[in-house]
């Protein structure tokens, strides 16, 4: 006896729990690999998973085994030239063919001292952003409830045909049919019993008019029984959708970068990696993240991604031009009541002498009160200039929402990023 079962539609992730347990257990190992990967990766591919290796000895499951030594006899196939009594040199370093006597326990792929496996993109990013959080996410979420989202909310009696709940409707119809038919059935049964009783009587004693009456009654009841509708508009039930107010889950990220002559391609690469990390991080926290690229030298301009990172410009630097443009764009397109606003600025620290004060003014007066978070990274190995100093006063004013760090080389990006978004104890 044999039967076939098609299980293809069943859940496929039976091992998900075990996989997760494994990842949790070797968290520290995996994190180390991930950190290395983040710094090594080319700037465009944060989007895929990562191969991780762990030394096999760290994850072995020990069992009692024979060690090397002693006297053992090994039978092998494929003899070509040996005859009994031949003496051979021991193969050195276990690289030889005869090494398989180890209790039969060699798992496939000999000589592997690294246990390698792949993380999915999600798992990879989980590790990248493990322990990080967006500051002030909750403040925004509670305040703005003008977004709505339709959610299911039980069933109702009226609605549009597209939302009929068939199961519930049929159940209602069935219940109604039982309820409506029961009294008719009962009357019918009584009439039939009376009729039978009448017919069982001696023909002499029968009452023909009574019989005719009963027959008419039965016919009438049967008709009524049939007339009970199979389904009635009264039975119909509809899936109900209501609009539920949603915390605003949209974010916009402004990437602001100095493209004046002093910013080399290396500087831009570093900036791009930083922006990318921030973007991925925002993407995990918000359903929708929009990007706005603003670049500036003496004048600021909104551009697309390609132009932002790769076109070359020369000239001096006026940072406040970019801040003014960001301010305008916010006012025009991204009302703070609906959008979570993030600004990330990268620069080498150069600015027109008198302009840094304007920047501070602009930030303090109009930008900071509307923003979720402002990060400034200065990519320079040199000493700070006026801009950094002015920004320090802003940071002192808005310690929770304004962060600034210095990056010297690519290896600093991830540590700086982690530091900026480290989960803080609730105040």
């Amino acid at each position, binding site marked *: *006896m044999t039967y076939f079962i098609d299980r293809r539609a069943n859940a496929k992730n*039976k091992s998900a729990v075990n996989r997760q347990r494994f990842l949790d257990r070797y968290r520290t190992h995996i994190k180390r690999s991930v950190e290395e990967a983040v710094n090594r990766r080319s700037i465009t591919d944060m989007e895929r998973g990562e191969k991780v290796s762990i030394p096999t000895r760290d994850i072995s499951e020990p069992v009692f085994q*024979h*060690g090397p030594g002693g006297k053992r006899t090994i*039978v092998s*196939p494929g003899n070509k030239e040996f005859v009994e009594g031949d003496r051979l040199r021991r193969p050195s370093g276990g690289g030889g063919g005869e090494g398989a006597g180890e*209790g*039969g326990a060699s798992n496939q792929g000999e000589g592997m001292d690294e246990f390698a496996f792949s993380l999915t993109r999600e798992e990879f990013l989980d590790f990248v952003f493990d322990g990080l959080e967006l500051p002030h996410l909750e403040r925004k979420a509670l305040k703005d409830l003008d977004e709505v989202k339709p959610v299911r909310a039980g069933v109702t009696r009226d609605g549009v045909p597209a939302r009929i709940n068939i199961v519930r409707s049929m159940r209602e119809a069935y219940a109604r049919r039982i309820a409506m038919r029961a009294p008719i059935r009962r009357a019918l049964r009584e009439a039939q019993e009376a009729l039978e009783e009448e017919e069982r009587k001696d023909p002499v004693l029968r009452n023909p008019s009574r019989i005719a009456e009963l027959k008419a009654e039965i016919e009438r009841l049967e008709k009524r029984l049939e007339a009970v509708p199979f389904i009635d508009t009264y039975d119909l039930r509809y899936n109900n959708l209501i609009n539920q107010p949603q915390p605003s889950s949209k974010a916009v990220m402004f990437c602001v970068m100095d493209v004046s002559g002093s910013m080399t391609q290396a500087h831009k690469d570093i900036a791009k990696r930083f922006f990318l990390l921030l973007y991925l991080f925002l993407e995990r926290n918000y359903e929708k993240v929009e990007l706005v690229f603003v670049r500036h030298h003496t004048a600021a301009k909104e551009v697309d991604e390609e132009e932002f990172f790769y076109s070359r410009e020369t000239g001096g630097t006026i940072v406040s031009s970019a801040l003014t443009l960001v301010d305008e764009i916010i006012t025009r397109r991204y009302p703070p009541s609906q959008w979570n606003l993030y600004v990330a600025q990268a620069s080498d620290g150069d600015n027109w002498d008198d302009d840094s004060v304007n920047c501070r003014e602009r930030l303090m007066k109009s930008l900071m009160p509307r923003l979720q978070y402002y990060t400034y990274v200065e990519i320079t190995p040199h000493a700070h200039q006026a801009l950094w100093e002015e920004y320090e006063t802003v940071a002192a004013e808005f310690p929770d929402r304004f962060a600034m760090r210095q990056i010297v080389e690519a290896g600093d990006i991830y540590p700086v990023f982690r530091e900026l978004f480290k989960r803080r104890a609730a105040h």
Partner: protein
Amino acid sequence: MTRRKPIATGSDWNFEILEAYERELSRLADEYRLDTYPNQIEIITTEQMMDAYASVGMPVGYHHWSFGKQFLAVEQAYRRGQMGLAYELVINSDPCIAYLMEENTLMMQVLVMAHACYGHNSFFKGNYLFRTWTDASSIVDYLVFARRYVAECEERHGVTAVEQLLDACHALQNYGVDRYKRPSPISAEEEVRRQAEREEYLQAQVNTLWRTIPGRPQADALPGSLDSEEDPLGLHAGGRYPPEPQENLLYFLEKNAPLLAPWQREIVRIVRKLAQYFYPQRQTQVMNEGWASFWHYTLMNRLYDEGLVDEGLMLEFLQSHTAVVSQPGFDSPFYSGINPYALGFAMFSDIKRMCENPTDEDREWFPDTAGSDWLEAVHFAMRNFKDESFIQQFLSPKVMRDLKLFSIVDDDQEEMLEVTAIHDERGYRRIREALAQQYALSLREPNIQVFEANIRGNRSLTLHHVQDSRRPMGRSVYPVIRHLHQLWGFPVRLESLSEDGTVARRYQWPLPDEEGKE
């Protein structure tokens, strides 16, 4: 020759075609008297197959990180193309569950049905080890019970506590089997019903063992115990516990470890029961795979002879079959030990050959088998042996010649390796003996037994390892006795005895300097 009317051509399949082939296979299997459990054939996807692989072939299992590790390894190997999945996965249960992967070709599906649903299935039902040690009808229920119990423990005592306990049990699971007495069949309902009862009972037992009221002094004082001058009241003269060495370490711990909580004992029991269930499989690799390969080969050829499959399918089959039963030589880069499929297939085919076309050599070596009814002979071999005894009994000079077997002695007291036997008249018996030993589970794993639990003194536990051919313990011994120490709760000592009975090496946990004694 009849004209071919194949049931299907090409490599695509659907359920009707599979059912038609299954019917034909079933008819042929009946002809060959293959007695099987009902088959439950499940069609699954690649991902599901990887899941199934990762849970070492258990259809449901409790959660543990080691299965996750297994899964990642399988996934990685599969992605890199190092491993074809798919050949087959079959579970010793009633009904017998076999998996077919959806992306296999028609040939593969028919082959796997023949191999798993008739080959392995009849082996599970017929072989004496499986009949004695496993209960196919209750295993799935038991696994469900185990999974639920472990999950409950995780909820109650935390995932980490359960995980550490399972780690320790897994390290000892090869020492959780009874080798000589039949365990009572395991059944899920009974397990649940008796479990509460057992908890109390067990705990009471343990308490009795550890009670401090002295028992009756016994006459046979131990060599290790204090002599009467030091101990005039005879407080230490209670005899050794356990009186006989115990080889089932997990059983001993489950019943006697002083500090384990009832739920921990139950988990030790679960690991032990599952180890017992897999015990026959570890002892019959060559036979089991050989038997299944022998039958898929025979059945596929019958299908072809009857015109039910076309030439294309047959060629594809032969290619796949040849790859499965190939045996690279010891010096080949593809060599990774003796291929159980190759050896088993060669041996079963050879039994058939010596029945049908016996040579003088066969008559001399196998007077009972040569020239007898081959079907009877292979069934007899399948039913009554395990790898070790099967090789001892049936490995013929012809197979040794075909595989060009030779044996080498590696003795660490000699500078050179020595070839002690090759496939010639003088060597046949020695090679056969050596190969059988190679498959003897009792020699593959170190022989370790519980020697003494010091129930009157410091509660330490002493194990004995009896060396075989001076082979020492591997480096993993410390992590394992550490796990053992976690379960036992008091110092654990392992004494490695050389063949003359003297202690060659001692291992102990906690390490002596940490403990500050000895």
